[in-house]
């Protein structure tokens, strides 16, 4: 089933940091409209690098594309500044829930909505508050004083406030209790279903990622080793062995 035009199209992308070895080589990936795509892989496999390449934040980490192209709804975005890519409809919740600690919850969301026309801000904030009622409760609280889970919701809410076509989410579960993580993901699936927002997510917990994603890609040492629908990957021996901790070590023939 090939969609007419993928929302995100990554073709043959290679990335290097500084003058060092390749962090990514020849990556190909697509995110369809209304799709949730997960990136799996061990630490250092290049998941975050791929997210940075798409979001335009690579430059802030002294990395650059050495080949390939990335487009968003048909527009080339590789080499574009992150803030311009946001305006094209790509929302991001970067790794480490980077909320604006000294601003209140509402001010954080207003900054997120600042790419929209002024008149649309209020309406958009209401949408975000409806999705995350906790944020409405904490509206006037300083963001830095909230719990980790609430800050993560705020980071997602801020990204959603820009009314994105696609949301990039990096390591949402980092340092959060599993129950909270599940609840946030459940909410994100609702966001996709109600608003039609596509998502590209990086998640350490492969089981969780494959539960909510439609498609997934497995990265290893900067290359895509496997890809397919979530169901296919769940059934794959390699994924079961390496990422799902399957209880079938007897048939593990992959690695010595």
């Amino acid at each position, binding site marked *: 089933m090939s969609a007419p035009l993928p929302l995100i199209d990554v073709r043959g992308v290679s990335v290097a940091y500084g003058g060092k070895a390749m962090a990514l080589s020849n990556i190909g990936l697509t995110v369809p409209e209304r799709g949730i795509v997960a990136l799996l892989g061990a630490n250092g496999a290049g998941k975050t690098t791929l997210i940075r390449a798409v979001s335009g934040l690579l430059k*802030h980490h002294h990395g650059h594309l050495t080949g390939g192209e990335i487009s968003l709804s048909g527009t080339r975005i590789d080499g574009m500044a992150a803030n311009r890519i946001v305006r094209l409809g790509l929302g991001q919740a970067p790794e480490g829930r980077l909320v604006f600690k000294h601003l209140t919850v509402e001010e954080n969301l207003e900054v997120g909505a600042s790419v929209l026309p002024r008149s649309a801000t209020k309406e958009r904030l209401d949408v975000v508050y409806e999705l995350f009622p906790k944020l409405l409760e904490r509206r006037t609280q300083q963001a830095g004083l909230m719990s980790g889970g609430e800050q993560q919701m705020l980071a997602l809410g801020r990204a959603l406030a820009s009314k994105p076509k696609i949301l990039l989410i990096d390591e949402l579960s980092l340092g959060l209790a599993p129950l909270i993580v599940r609840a946030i993901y459940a909410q994100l699936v609702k966001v996709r279903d109600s608003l039609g927002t596509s998502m590209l997510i990086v998640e350490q917990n492969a089981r969780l990622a494959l539960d909510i994603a439609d498609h997934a890609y497995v990265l290893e040492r900067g290359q895509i080793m496997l890809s397919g629908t979530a169901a296919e990957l769940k059934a794959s021996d390699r994924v079961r062995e390496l990422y799902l901790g399957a209880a079938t070590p007897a048939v593990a023939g992959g690695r010595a």
Partner: protein
Amino acid sequence: MTVAQHPVIARGAVLAAGQRSIPWLRIALSILALAVLLYLPFVLQSRVLFGTRLTNMQLLNIGLAQVNLTLIAVVGALSLNFLTGCAGLVSIGHAAFFALGAMGASFAGSQLGLPFLVTLIIAALVGALAGVLAGLPSLRVRGLYFVLSTLAVHFIAAYLFSEFQYAFHDVAGVTMPDAQIGGFELSNGIRWYFFLLPIAFLAYVLFRNTLRFREGRALLAMRDNELAAAAAGIDVRILRLKAFAFSSAIAGIVGALQAYYLTTVSAEFYSLNLAIQFIAMIIIGGMGSLSGSVLGAVVWLLLPALIGGLATELKGSDLALARIIVEHKPQVVNLVFGSLVAILLIYAPDGLAGGWRRIKAWLANRPTGGAS
């Protein structure tokens, strides 16, 4: 309606609730403050309060000239705090914009013969232009390296000012034309006071509103986390240059006002020490706090007068402490400021404004039902 609580000046729902429930108190206090501010220059001029003659010490040894210079410094501290406290760009080159503003105003006034108010606008334009140039390194370098680039800006401006001074004036310094608005000359302290007071007030409101609106909000976001700001769609490079231009435009006006008020300024006046004094003001008052900028400037300019007055008062006293104060007045002033900065850094890192905020929050939250 959104509750547009200022993120920096008055944080915390406790204070906001308190202010909303008793607006009459606020209104009354504002009227009282206005009345005091309107009556103040006449008291300082005549040294008489409601018909009672005041001694020097009852006036805290403060004269109208010091108050006027304080009003100018308030605007300068606001502009530096906007740049350093709110945008997160530490600059030790702020005196450069004072110098360039004074130079621009002097050239526009004396060489081009433009009227006083127009020269102030020219000073702002010169300041803004210099600010954009000074801000350019901020696009490439961060932290200490950026601070060093502002140091370079300081010395370049100091050099330009001295060249200007010797080209058009003499060793004594750049002599400013008379400050005249229409036919009305700012010829005495009282007139200056009533010219400077609204300017300081306007500057405060201007900065406060800027921080409340989209761009200012973005500025505070950028200070908190640059990466997240970029990820939220903010063009941090342009924003930084805008912040620099705005801050320096106001600093340019401050420089011009300073020069007009002092009538003559020389290159030596724009020392690194002047820039550092303004940094001290915003540290004492509170980084990132506009009301703190005002407090800091007031303390910095009026406390030395107070200590000076104390020294005069104590003359002839036999107490050892009194003699130390009398004989080593400048050192005592330095000692007091040094101690003040040290104490604030330990107990109230967010300055006088932050300390005051915490005292108010503490009073409001007292378990023994005080103010609520």
